[in-house]
């Protein structure tokens, strides 16, 4: 896997981590707030590790890759860009994304580059906890109409996280019928809005150390 392909995964983790970190302080229960915040932090941590690998090949730094690209240059999937601040949507996305990511990491652990394969193994070990958490919640909410509706809504976007050849496996794993996926092309207004906020301090004194 090359640097550009790594950026796709890194951008997914970064943007999803950003979205998930928005729940810090306002999640449905205090205990869950603490737990979910760790998941958000892990995602940012994964993004950082992936950016660091890509940065070496591209001759830049992780922070520059994370912050200093034009919003149009991010390769994140539409799934992670959605901003909803609704718990049913958040858990639906969390559950489907983690399952998709599990498949993606399985492939990445076989990468010919030992650094990439090694990082994938480390990420997978942390993600085990994310998967348990997502399944725990999906199980609890499974009879809730709002949750079922949220799953319906995000399912086509979840399929779009993976390359075409892995989508059937995802459908099988979550026991859903495959549908037409929403592909990774172009970006939503949601991402531009996120990018503006995410980079506002950094852009306020360009080139400064923070």
């Amino acid at each position, binding site marked *: 896997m090359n640097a550009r392909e790594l950026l796709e995964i890194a951008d997914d983790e970064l943007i999803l981590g950003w979205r998930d970190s928005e729940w810090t302080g306002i999640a449905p*229960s205090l205990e*869950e707030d*603490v*737990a979910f915040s760790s998941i958000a932090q892990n995602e940012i941590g994964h993004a950082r590790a992936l950016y660091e690998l890509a940065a070496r090949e591209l001759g830049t730094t992780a922070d520059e890759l994370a912050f200093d690209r034009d919003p149009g240059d991010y390769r994140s999937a539409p799934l992670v860009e959605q901003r909803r601040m609704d718990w049913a949507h958040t858990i639906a996305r969390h559950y489907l994304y983690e399952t998709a990511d599990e498949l993606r990491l399985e492939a990445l652990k076989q990468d010919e580059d030992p650094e990439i394969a090694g990082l994938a193994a480390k990420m997978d070990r942390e993600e085990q906890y994310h998967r348990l*958490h997502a399944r*725990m919640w999906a199980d*609890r909410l499974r009879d809730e109409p709002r949750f079922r509706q949220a799953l319906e809504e995000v399912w086509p976007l979840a399929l779009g996280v993976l390359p075409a050849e892995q989508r059937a496996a995802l459908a099988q794993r979550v026991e859903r019928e495959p549908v037409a996926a929403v592909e990774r092309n172009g970006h939503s207004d949601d991402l531009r809005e996120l990018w503006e906020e995410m980079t506002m301090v950094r852009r306020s004194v360009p080139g400064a150390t923070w």
Partner: protein
Amino acid sequence: MIYEVFRQERKGVAFAHAGSLDAPDATFAEAFAREQYGRRQESEALWVVSREAIHAVGDFADELNKTYHRVDGYSLKAKLKEARERAGTA
């Protein structure tokens, strides 16, 4: 439901009560306990127990001065002195 969390700080030491949390079931309680008491790798292990499963015991009766149960109930100094004097080893 309230769950009590006991944590072992490192291998070999006893589990000590660390706090309590509110969770709908044991699975959630475990997930919550992991983060509240382990996110900084500060615990070797945790025990997560439903508060209902814990029997609080207190109010111990000590009415009849059981000196044989206490260290200060054995006054050996005077007897040792006498024994040494008898043996000529004082």
